[in-house]
């Protein structure tokens, strides 16, 4: 049987060797052409958010400002389907404010007319989720050059780099570098797309959403630069993706301390129990109770105080 198994092993190894040789041969004969998206793509910028790290907490004033950016700019195209108006309470809004935000929201919630039974819309309530800007995907694509603006509820968890990625995209719009066009003449950004090196294939369908300082008027006195607005929007989206982050961090610290104490106590108990077993390995020798008694007697005889 071992010969059969050895033969099977050799066959697999042989086919792998053939695969390897043919792969290397293909690579040598026709090396893969370099791609502009491999060479000019950039990792997200380094940017710090209050929610970063194991002890991170949201800066709720910043998240509020970010919500303002979302509602005045992003929400024109992007939905926030998993978040409801009542969730805004965590940002520091009170019930009356949330009610007003919901009823003033630019899109209404589909409903049924109670008198006629016909389809209609009504004002949003705090218990509603944010109504999407477009009724369906087809409508969203029709209004956006056939591109679909993604839902933003989980965007910072759904992209490598998280909030820093969102910030980088929002501030990363620029003209295509001449070196790129020189090296890849075919890679010119097509019409209706915008060059953004933080986007995977470099050309994003979203037009630059934040273009001028003061596009949003903050009520808390923060200067609404493009950079600041992008930071705030990213902070808000970090909150929508992970609204329980603060509870998680707080619980985590408590659980880790609890487990640490429990583990230390368990370790001490383990030693207590095993010390006896380690002595009991050999009932003879210097630790044998009989020998110990002998030693004590000898010491007493020699006059050593014990």
């Amino acid at each position, binding site marked *: 049987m071992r010969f059969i198994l050895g033969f099977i092993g050799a066959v697999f*190894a042989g086919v*792998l060797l053939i*695969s390897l040789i043919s792969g290397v041969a293909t690579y040598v004969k026709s090396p893969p052409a370099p791609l502009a998206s491999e060479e000019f793509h950039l990792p997200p910028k380094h940017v710090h958010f209050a929610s970063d790290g194991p002890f991170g907490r949201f800066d709720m004033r910043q998240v509020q400002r970010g919500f303002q950016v979302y509602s005045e700019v992003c929400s024109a195209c992007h939905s926030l389907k998993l978040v409801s108006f009542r969730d805004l309470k965590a940002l520091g809004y009170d019930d009356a404010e949330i009610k007003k935000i919901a009823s003033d929201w630019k899109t209404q919630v589909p409903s049924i007319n109670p008198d006629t039974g016909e389809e209609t819309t009504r004002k949003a309530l705090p218990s509603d989720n944010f109504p999407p800007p477009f009724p369906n995907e087809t409508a969203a694509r029709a209004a956006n050059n056939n591109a679909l603006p993604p839902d933003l509820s989980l965007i910072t968890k759904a992209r490598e780099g998280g909030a820093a990625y969102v910030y980088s995209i929002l501030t990363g719009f620029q003209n295509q570098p001449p070196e790129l066009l020189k090296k890849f003449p075919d890679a010119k950004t097509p019409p209706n797309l915008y060059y953004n090196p933080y986007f995977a294939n470099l050309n994003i369908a979203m037009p630059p959403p934040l273009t001028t300082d003061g596009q949003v008027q903050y009520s808390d006195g923060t200067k609404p630069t493009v950079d600041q607005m992008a930071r705030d929007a990213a902070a808000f989206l970090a909150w929508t993706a992970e609204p329980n982050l603060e509870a998680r961090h707080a619980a985590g610290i408590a659980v880790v301390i609890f487990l640490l104490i429990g*583990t230390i106590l368990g370790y001490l108990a383990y030693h207590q129990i095993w010390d006896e077993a380690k002595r009991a*390995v050999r009932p003879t020798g210097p630790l044998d109770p009989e020998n110990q008694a002998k030693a004590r007697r000898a010491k007493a005889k020699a006059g050593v105080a014990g």
Partner: protein
Amino acid sequence: MSFSWARPYEPKHPLMRWIDDRLPLPRLVYGAVGGGYPVPRNLNYWWNFGVAAGLFLTIQIITGIVLAMHYTASTDGAFNSVNGLIMRDVNAGWLLRYAHMNGASFFFIVVYIHIFRGLYYGSYKAPREMVWMLGLVIYLLMMATAFMGYVLPWGQMSYWGAQVITGFFSAFPVVGEPLRIWLLGGYAPDQAALTRFFSLHYLLPFVIAGVVILHVWALHIPGSSNPTGVDVKDERDTLPFHPFFTAKDGWFSGAILLLYAIVTYFAPDYLGHPDNYIPANPLATPAEIVPEWYFWPFYAILRSFTVDFILPAKLWGVLAMFSSILLLFFLPWIDRSPVRSGAYRPVFKRFFWLLVIDVIILGWAGGGAPTPMRNVISQLAAAYYFLHFLVILPLVSAFETPLPLPRSISDSVLHGEEAEAAPVASKPRRSRTATAVAE
């Protein structure tokens, strides 16, 4: 149990005697994990991962049952029920979900350590072949369960992972494609597949629990192996499971839970893929489809076959991937060395560590996009994997000269008498202080 000095159960309380006379459940527990199970006294910490695996199976079943109370198994509702309802509105739902997600990863971490411990110390050898093979059955069931669990949130990786993995079956000629369609209940993963995956994902953990009982039962016949691989000879070689190993497993489980808590609370998405936070979309293939990290070595083996040689490349890959696990069932008969423990096998030991490195390389290769460089490394590593088990191991076991074995377990523990006497000698002093304080 199996040793003549194993203490039979003697009920201390009349109630326990009453129960024991009618249903010897206390007797079973006492013999299985109590004072009635003698364990080799020289077990090191690599032997603690079996209990840890049981712990994570329990965590998975408990968190999973509660999650199932809030989950919606429909293609329209699954993503929102996980990422909306459970993560946002269910009380501590985020904790249940993250604990379940990372519990799966930790289950695999401890099981992989458990398996490699068995490989190093020859735990698969006679008379423990049945323990080893039941363990492999558990592992296969775990893989099936984990795969189906990953499909349930119905994110992009869920969907495309299901597409790729069920696609394995279509590699087989003639029966492959009909089999795949029958398994999925359609031409692509859809409502039928999601519902049956949910149903099976709920069922299989209980099957695992059943096989775990058989695994532990089979273990209790010969008793645990040990780092020397030398058989237990007399009572001095063993200690009762309780309190010695319950205490050791107890604190060590605490330490593992600590690591688990740190990941679950502070980096819950670290081991996952961002694409699974995008709802499943059958029309948009992700840039790269990768399974969860614990499948990466096997995924690398699958992808390493790139040439149609007699059989199509895909069939080679699927056959090799299944073989890579199935060959482990033959291990007790592949490795014929009479010496169990790798500690006394100088040549085997080197190849063992080479295998560990090889599997880590395979994991790296399976976790990323297949660049030409990665393909070459992956192919070499996959070839070594098969050569290791099917060619090198039989040869090593035939030609290797093992080191001399200790005469018994107590002998191996006794080597450093003087060194060991020192800390224990301080013990009486401590008790004297205690008496002084009492006075």
